[in-house]
């Protein structure tokens, strides 16, 4: 147990520089904008005096390192600046983020669930029928689903379900649960393909092991061998990477939310970029990046929990 604790502590400490890098990149973004950085975070049509005031407030006259320090200090207090878009002028970016966050979590949660409920059974199915045409078609499906850019998949699903079949309300959240299905499926399909592949190879590996042969030779029904004994072991490596999927979903969410006008963080990034609402863009990217780091951390810890060899490495 002690080695697990020290492993977790080590991993948590390693996550700190990555989060710092994220804050630095977000801070640096201001300096990468063409022209005076203060203009990027000032309300539109601000007067010279107002700009000067903002410069003083955010310390833009001070050395670079000190500015970054102040930026971090404000972050620690939850201050991400104020929105400069017309619709949400002077609203705290943190408030804006908190409003949108539940929507993204909802989408990611359902997307993850969908991708596992498609990927795991499909992978098992494919492994049990290795090298048959059924297996091959599943593999072709995973190749295509993995290569499919999520925005195009979203467009195709919209076309199929709402335009041709007239089933589900297309955009936004008006339809409640029914309107989340398409975006969640779009978000989850690429990951479902990956899960299928991983589940398949993991299952193939496990079913070749001696204890499975032994169970079969003892006369256990095949169903029991597969679902009670093999699946339990095969599913572990697939489940432990759930944290890494979060990184995949974060990137996907930005695009998918935009396609379906789903009012989460991803959509907020896109609209903020269009509205030149720079503080909001910074806030979103930071929050999403922290998500990914936490997801990776979770994967590392889960993995060590399941496989004790990792802790010592």
């Amino acid at each position: 147990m002690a080695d697990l604790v020290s492993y977790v502590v080590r991993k948590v400490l390693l996550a700190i520089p990555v989060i710092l890098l994220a804050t630095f990149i977000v801070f640096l973004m201001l300096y990468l904008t063409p022209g005076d950085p203060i203009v990027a975070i000032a309300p539109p049509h601000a007067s010279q005096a107002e700009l000067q005031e903002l410069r003083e407030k955010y310390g833009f006259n001070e050395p670079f390192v000190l500015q970054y320090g102040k930026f971090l200090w404000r972050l620690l207090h939850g201050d991400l600046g104020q929105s400069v878009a017309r619709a949400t002028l002077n609203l705290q970016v943190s408030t804006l983020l908190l409003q949108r966050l539940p929507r993204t979590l909802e989408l990611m949660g359902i997307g993850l669930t969908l991708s596992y409920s498609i990927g795991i059974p499909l992978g098992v199915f494919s492994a049990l029928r290795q090298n048959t045409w059924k297996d091959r078609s599943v593999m072709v499906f995973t190749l295509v689903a993995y290569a499919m850019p999520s925005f195009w998949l979203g467009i195709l699903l919209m076309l199929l379900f709402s335009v041709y079949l007239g089933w589900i309300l297309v955009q936004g959240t008006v339809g409640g649960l029914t309107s989340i299905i398409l975006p969640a499926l779009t978000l989850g399909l690429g990951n479902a393909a990956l899960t299928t592949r991983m589940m398949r190879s993991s299952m193939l590996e496990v079913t070749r092991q001696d204890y499975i042969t032994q169970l079969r030779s003892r006369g256990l029904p095949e169903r029991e061998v597969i679902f009670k004994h093999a699946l339990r072991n095969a599913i572990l490596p697939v489940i432990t990477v759930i944290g890494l999927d979060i990184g995949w979903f974060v990137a996907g969410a930005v695009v998918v939310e935009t396609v379906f006008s789903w009012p989460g963080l991803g959509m907020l990034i896109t609209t903020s970029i269009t509205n030149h609402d720079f503080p909001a863009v910074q806030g979103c990217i930071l929050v999403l990046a922290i998500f990914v780091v936490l997801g990776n951390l979770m994967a590392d810890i889960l993995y060590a929990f399941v496989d004790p060899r990792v802790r010592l490495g």
Partner: protein
Amino acid sequence: MRLRKTLNDRLLGWKMSGGFRQTAVEIVERGSRNSMVVVGMTIIIVIVALALLAPVLPMADPTPSNLVPEERTLSPSWNHWFGTDELGRDIFSRVIWGARVSLLVATMAVVFSLMIGVVLGLTAGYFGGVVDYIIAGTIDLFWTFPAFLLALAFAAALGPSLTNVILAISVSYWAGFGRLMRGQALTVRERQFVEASRALGANNIRIMFTHVLPNCLAPLIVWASVGVADAITIESSLSFLGVGTQPPTPSWGYMLYRGIPFLEEAPWIATFPGVVLLITILGFNLLGDGLRDVLDPRMKGLRR
């Protein structure tokens, strides 16, 4: 990018003997017997040829200056294979011209990432010690950070333009190459031929680039191929979000975005660029997957 991460881990520690030429000959020989490589390569050759020949092909102007209202949203026909868009521009010709943009951005981004990654990874792995500690730390930082988010941050800050997209993707994608190169360099530098050439008086730079690098070539090629697929996905996503290539330059991502309001009326506007985009990404993925199987038979069993 989870698949990429596992792929990269497996490519680490993979050794190929022989120099540049021998590796190239081996790749062509064995690759031509693998169906994934052949299909992937065929797709890539067709797309690249169309993209290169775009200026001389007998096609409509992708960005005509005088738009004819009667030509708007025409369905696919003999005259307009993929139909026309909401402004009356020929979609087939825009898709082909869009291929130029996508391929240019993706190739440039992969070349820059490769250069950054190879130089840093090679230096870290070859010299070891403090140099390695610092560089490997940096590589790991960027490796953990999701490439798309980083590219989005840079593209949003720099403002939309072709150069900025290339820059944004390179900055966010190089860590994979760096990691791979470092891992390879760490093992290769221990081999006897490195010691031998040092004894013969070769300097570090010479050993690094003429002895260590060629031995790491095969996994770099695999990673570069899937890298192009990733870069095309990132580029089209950025254009889709409006921070990539700017109109009137035809770009697949932006064409898809513009097609959404016309889904009911003219579904071909958003469909055809997507088909070509998917096929292109598939082509590079197939090539990468196939090459990996071909070049390293040990891995074939691992990821059927």
